[in-house]
């Protein structure tokens, strides 16, 4: 039998079982806890057959899954009393990049994250999670606010990339990204980045660097999308899967390069199959990372942050 290439077909059985779990959860069935537990075991078994066969492009499809939890889902689940703040104080507000403050474990924390939309209308409003310069400038404004009050910053990364549009260029897309990188390196509060879905190039990087980078198991963080890479290097959209294999952008690859600190495990089937477990796993890693960073002096933290990126790169020197 030929190997199934499309993840959305591959996961058909898992999704069917998940649907049964969702129905049970809504029901009044007195035995529902037991039944759900049994169905979860069934998903685990299904997944055990699928997971080892997953290709890098399957990871991309999971990372882009329309049911995958987005930034606002994590904020709802893990941050109390979140207030979203708007605008870059220059040109406008960017709904593709959310920024604000909430309580995490009882402590004020800045949260910044790309937001994709769920419905067609919502997707358009969010520009499919592709920020304009206003988004990056707003993000920096909120980071500076966090610095002013001494609050840590958490960023959630999930974008195909910075928006390639006329107005974005006019208003300095490149400058906005570059300036964020420069300023984040000097920010005197802890910055934790979590790639929850797509880590699309400069558009992800502009809010995707800090003291610790965590990645969900099936997310990716890449210099270019596999589609973009296929178009440029192969000059063939059919080469997307080859591009995905060559780019080595999976969490385990980045861990190997020493770029990321931790891989956050996803539930069997991927984050979209079991939100609660996903939130719990992310929560655990985030809490651990923040308390590790809390113990450092500002100077220590800034030096380590600098050294972390200073060391990245592989070359030969005679």
């Amino acid at each position, binding site marked *: 039998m030929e190997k199934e290439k499309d993840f959305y077909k591959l996961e058909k059985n898992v999704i069917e079982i998940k649907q049964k779990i969702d129905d049970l959860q809504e029901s009044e069935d007195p035995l529902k806890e037991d039944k759900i537990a049994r169905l979860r075991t069934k998903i685990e078994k299904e997944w055990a057959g699928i997971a080892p066969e997953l290709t890098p492009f399957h990871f991309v499809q999971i990372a882009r899954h329309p049911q995958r939890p987005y930034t606002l889902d994590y904020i709802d689940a893990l941050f109390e009393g979140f207030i979203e703040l708007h605008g870059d104080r220059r040109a406008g507000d960017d709904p593709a990049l959310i920024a604000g403050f909430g309580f995490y474990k009882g402590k004020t924390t800045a949260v910044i994250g790309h937001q994709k939309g769920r419905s067609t209308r919502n997707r358009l409003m969010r520009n499919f999670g592709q920020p304009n310069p206003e988004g990056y400038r707003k993000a920096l404004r909120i980071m500076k606010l966090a610095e002013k009050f001494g609050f840590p910053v958490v960023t959630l990364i999930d974008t195909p990339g910075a928006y390639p549009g006329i107005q974005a260029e006019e208003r300095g897309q490149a400058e906005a990204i570059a300036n964020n*990188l420069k300023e984040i390196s000097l920010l005197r509060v802890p910055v934790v980045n979590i790639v929850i879905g797509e880590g699309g190039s400069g558009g992800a990087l502009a809010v995707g660097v800090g003291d610790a980078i965590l990645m969900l198991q099936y997310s990716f963080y890449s*210099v270019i999308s596999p589609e973009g890479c296929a178009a440029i290097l192969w000059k063939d959209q059919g080469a997307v899967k080859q591009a995905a294999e060559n780019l080595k952008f999976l969490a385990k690859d980045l861990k190997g390069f020493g770029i990321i600190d931790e891989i956050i495990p996803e539930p069997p089937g991927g984050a979209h199959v079991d939100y609660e477990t996903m939130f719990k796993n992310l929560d655990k890693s985030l809490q651990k990372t923040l308390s590790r960073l809390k113990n450092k002096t500002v100077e220590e933290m800034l030096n380590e942050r600098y050294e972390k990126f200073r060391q*990245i790169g592989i*070359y030969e020197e005679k």
Partner: protein
Amino acid sequence: MEQLWARCNNCRRILYKQDIMDNMHVCPTCHFHFRLSAVERFFMLFDVGQFELFDEDISPVDVLQFKDQKKYSDRIKISQTKTGLNDAVLSAIGMMDGIRVIICAMEFAFMGGSMGSVVGEKVTRALERALKEKVPVIVISSSGGARMQEGILSLMQLMKTSQAIARLEKAGVPYISLCTDPTTGGTTASYAMLGDINIAEPDALIGFAGPRVIEQTIKQKLPKGFQRSEFLLEHGMLDDIVDRKKLRPYIIRVLRLFTNQPR
């Protein structure tokens, strides 16, 4: 045999090559600025014979074993043979009108001037040397952006170089970014846009996304002059556009102003 004639990419006129060279590789007829190699930049900007290269022996490695239609390792070899360079940037320290200055010049002929680990490392070292020796630094960009064949390692060079600029800024060491045709992608989204002053040669393509990508995204033809130096100046992204022939005196003047050294 070396060709004696060349055609201008812009006005399409056939020109005597020596005339173009004598004119600093600017078309004598239409003023089109031809691309320069990194070494040509040094000869054009430094005082005669007053520079030395550094960090010359850093070479790229095919870490990802990347293979598209060609292997990355083969692309490296081809570019090295073609340009005589190890990778897409050269660093030099020397004098401009008696002022000590570091210049990094990117080499577009080497894989489109793309930034991978070597470019990121060399630019960072140059910035760090500038910081240590309190010497002004100039980066001359000519680059399509991050080098895809080095994947995420390339992307992280944006942060590596930008954070070095942050330290320069805090220490009060001048940094000038010169954008030449083309300066796009990750290069623009890092050091090329972070100068104390950002200047460009006339009519250089400068932007984040490439024009083809934008056209495909918005499904429209782009207006004439979009993402050219003049467009960026108009939108407040550049301090000035400087003709190649005026570049050396212009930069010297800026260096004198920023280091408070009147003649």
